[in-house]
């Protein structure tokens, strides 16, 4: 039983310890050291994860290092890396202190574990390891009352929903007599699934994950937290913790779905058949998409708008999840990758704009397109990609999701999803109308430093490049990774 698959986790832990020690010793005099150390740890973990021999075997009985887990490990390390860079230039601390770095690293560690977990205990542990640092991250700027309020809401909401999830888990453990996911599948097969208690438990578990991926009806925290938290942190939450949440949910569904008899379908063909969890997710998906898009229509502040838009995207992801086919899984992974670049870029730009203009509300964006063509163009590309328009990566992602949905024959589900895309165009284009169509509020041209332009280009280029070319190997890669969840490497 080699410990290879654990290498990324080990590296991250070493990173955390290293940062704490250097920060204590340096006493804030040489802040660059912990930052470079943290970045190095993340990079090393990502590289190590890539190196893991992907097999179906369990590691320590609790982790499964299959292709799916590896991808998410690399994904979360990457997001952590970018988020740290973003805070360097974003509206947050001038130079992020040691505490910030440790929190980010530990959250990333939690995400890696969550993606690879094969046991309910590990699942819950990783879930909490992601949540708790995030609560603190949101409230990092103690002086800012908005950050404090955001973290308060986040911690209360998070604690309640994880409590409910835990209670559900306890029932599942009780009913199935084991905590390992594979064992769970077997137990459910022979009769445990029909217990009414199981239905209640699975819904409660869904509540926990719904909070993590900000799906309706557990989305309330997202707008306030993203608005209150610094843009970089908001980006980190919007992308990384959402991805980890989906990874965990996929693990649970993969374990439970095959053996759960399909329940009757009151809505007649609209929703995919499947166990109570699938149906709850399907309803959740529809509600999340619609609520997310509708909520964003009237927003006047950029971070809050991006918050609602991330809820909408959670809806599309959930839609792919509840269709539950190999195509759907591939689409899910592809969508998350696209979502990473688009959303991080969006939040980065939001951070820059708030830092430069002092405020995030859209009116101040007047004529930005003319005052700084580069930033304007980047935001235009990102927003059009988030809408899902062709020459950009967003279109490929959305196309693959709706392709999967239609492949299973849910025509009207796809149409509702596509129409939601149209509604989203309204508020994305509204931002653009402030950017280009409105008269410039002031003539001061905006200059961006080298690191901002570099980071921005690194995030925006893939959105354009993958929109136009390389689709073949992207789809190929996604198809190899996604279905891995069904077992068999």
């Amino acid at each position: 039983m080699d410990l290879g698959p654990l290498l990324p986790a080990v590296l991250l832990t070493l990173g955390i310890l290293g940062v704490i020690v250097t920060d204590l010793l340096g006493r804030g005099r040489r802040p660059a050291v912990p930052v470079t150390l943290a970045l190095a740890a993340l990079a090393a973990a990502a590289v190590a994860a890539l190196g893991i021999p992907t097999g179906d075997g369990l590691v320590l009985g609790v982790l499964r290092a299959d292709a799916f887990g590896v991808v998410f490990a690399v994904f979360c390390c990457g997001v952590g890396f970018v988020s740290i860079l973003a805070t360097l230039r974003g509206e947050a601390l001038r130079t992020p202190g040691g505490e910030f770095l440790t929190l980010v690293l530990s959250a990333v560690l939690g995400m890696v574990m969550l993606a690879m977990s094969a046991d309910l205990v590990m699942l819950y542990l990783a879930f909490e390891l992601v949540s708790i640092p995030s609560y603190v991250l949101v409230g990092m700027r103690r002086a800012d009352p908005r950050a404090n309020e955001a973290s308060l809401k986040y911690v209360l909401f998070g604690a309640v929903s994880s409590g409910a999830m835990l209670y559900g888990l306890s029932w599942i453990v009780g009913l199935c007599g084991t905590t390992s996911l594979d064992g769970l599948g077997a137990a459910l097969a022979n009769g445990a699934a029909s217990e009414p208690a199981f239905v209640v438990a699975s819904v409660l578990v869904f509540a926990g994950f719904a909070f993590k991926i900000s799906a309706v009806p557990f989305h309330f925290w997202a707008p306030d937290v993203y608005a209150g938290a610094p843009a970089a942190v908001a980006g980190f939450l919007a992308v990384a913790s959402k991805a980890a949440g989906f990874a965990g949910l996929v693990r649970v569904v993969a374990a439970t779905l095959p053996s759960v008899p399909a329940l009757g379908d009151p809505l007649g063909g609209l929703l995919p058949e499947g166990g109570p969890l699938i149906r709850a997710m399907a309803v959740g998906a529809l509600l999340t998409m619609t609520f997310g898009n509708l909520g964003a229509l009237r927003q006047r502040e950029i971070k809050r708008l991006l918050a609602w838009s991330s809820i909408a995207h959670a809806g599309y992801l959930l839609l792919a999840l509840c269709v539950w086919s190999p195509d759907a899984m591939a689409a899910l992974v592809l969508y998350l990758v696209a979502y990473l670049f688009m959303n991080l870029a969006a939040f980065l730009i939001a951070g820059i704009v708030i830092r430069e203009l002092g405020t995030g509300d859209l009116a101040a964006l007047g004529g930005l397109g003319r005052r700084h063509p580069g930033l304007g163009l980047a935001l235009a590309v990102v927003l059009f990609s988030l809408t899902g328009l062709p020459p950009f990566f967003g279109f490929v992602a959305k196309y693959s999701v709706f392709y999967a949905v239609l492949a299973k024959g849910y025509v009207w589900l796809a149409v509702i999803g596509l129409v939601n895309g149209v509604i989203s165009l309204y508020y994305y284009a509204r931002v653009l109308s402030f950017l280009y169509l409105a008269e410039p509020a002031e003539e001061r041209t905006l200059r961006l430093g080298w690191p901002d332009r570099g980071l921005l280009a690194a995030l925006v280029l893939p959105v354009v490049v993958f929109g136009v070319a390389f689709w073949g190997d992207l789809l190929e890669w996604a198809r190899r990774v996604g279905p891995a969840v069904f077992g068999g490497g």
Partner: protein
Amino acid sequence: MLSLLVFTPIAGLLACWVLPARHARAINLVTCAAALVLSVVVWQRMDAAALGSLANPLAERAAWIPPVGIEYYLAIDGVSLALVLLTTFVAFVSAIASWRVEKLERGYHMMFLLLLTGMLGVFLAEDLFLFYIFWEVMLLPMYFLIGIWGGPRRQYAAIKFFLYTLAGSVLLLAAIILVVLKNPGEGGRLVWAIDHYTALAASGHALLESGLAGLAFVFMFIGFAIKVPCWPFHTWLPDAHVEAPTPISMILAGVLLKMGGYGLIRIAYPFFPATAMDLSTWVAAISVIAIVYGAFVAMGQTDFKRLIAYSSVSHMGFVTLGLASGTDEGLNGAMYMMLAHGTISAMLFMVVGVIYDRAHHRDLDRFGGLAWTMPRYAMFGSFAFFASLGLPGMSGFIAEFTTFLGAFAGVDRWAAFVALLGVVLTAAYYLITLQKVYLGDTPAVYKDPKHYPDLTAREVAVLAPLALVTLYMGLVPSTAMDLYMDVARGLTRTLAQAASGFPGLGLG
């Protein structure tokens, strides 16, 4: 060769981006001219056989996304050629008309060229996915062109145009995916080529079983009908036209409206011939409403540009009327109306643009007696009006006449009779407008030639070619008709077989 044609504007776009802004308009003009020349060269290289089918030496096919079976497949036949020639010609003329754009000059001409690529791409793409990509790429520049360089309510008009068309294209995407999914090629690999499905449907094999086929056809029809625009989906057109700058109105009316018709003829009707003929009564009904209702509403307008927008709605009703009849003449009329309306409406919008540049308002009731202060302008104006109301000797008449022949011989004969009413109404509102703008005594404000000079050389350079083409197409229609008739006859054969037991007079 075709790729060269589609991506020449992109080269121009890059040139505009790199070179200083003041050269932008020259680059734009040169690129449009190059595109026009290229399209003529393509025309010369196409013999009769090439006009008849897509599988000709000019086609360019390369694997683009192998795992999903999507190809980079450009091909051209008579129908595409006719519309490509129209596109490059109207674009060239609009480039001349864009000569005096000052605001954000570089951005304007870059967006103009991006739009041109999108349009050419739509007409040449033979892969459903590539078609959809170009179909949506075209929306981006239009949003900015209307949104930034438009009139007072430009933001509202731009977003309304974008939302409306996007909603349509979303339904189109759903239908395309359904068709592709339900008909996998050999070995489960997906096939996206349009001619593959056209051949399949022509051989009587239903692409989707009846329930789904009906749904897919309606989705496709709505997606394309919004672009035509058919009657219930037309309300974006007046706003978009009123707010768009003159050259963009010319392109919007001249070319963009033809994409809906082209989509119906290339994709919707050939894919689902049986459903198309079953629903032909409905299609005929909305086209007749479009013709009569459009003419009637146009008569009630006070804004010059909005009037021409509604006249476009009315004239495009003939396209769908021709299609619904399912006869050779009907299809011929539909195609010819697209070409004729392209040049005539571009000319009409230039006419409005000329007077708007001088008077800075478009209120018909405030105009009067322009014929005496601006005689050459009045000549071109009344030429455009009479061409549009279908006076023989000009392309409008041939288009309407052929469509009537088709509609009368087709399934829904009643539609032809009701549409006739539209002809008189069209004549009425054009003559009323002609009298309001050109005749009557000249109000003092329009008298001094300093503020109201007659047409400048540039304006004549825009109007004269359009007028000549309209006249030529009116007197010698065979040149244009021979281009697309083989394809049209093929489609009618398929429609007739699909309708099986075609109740008409069995003609054509």
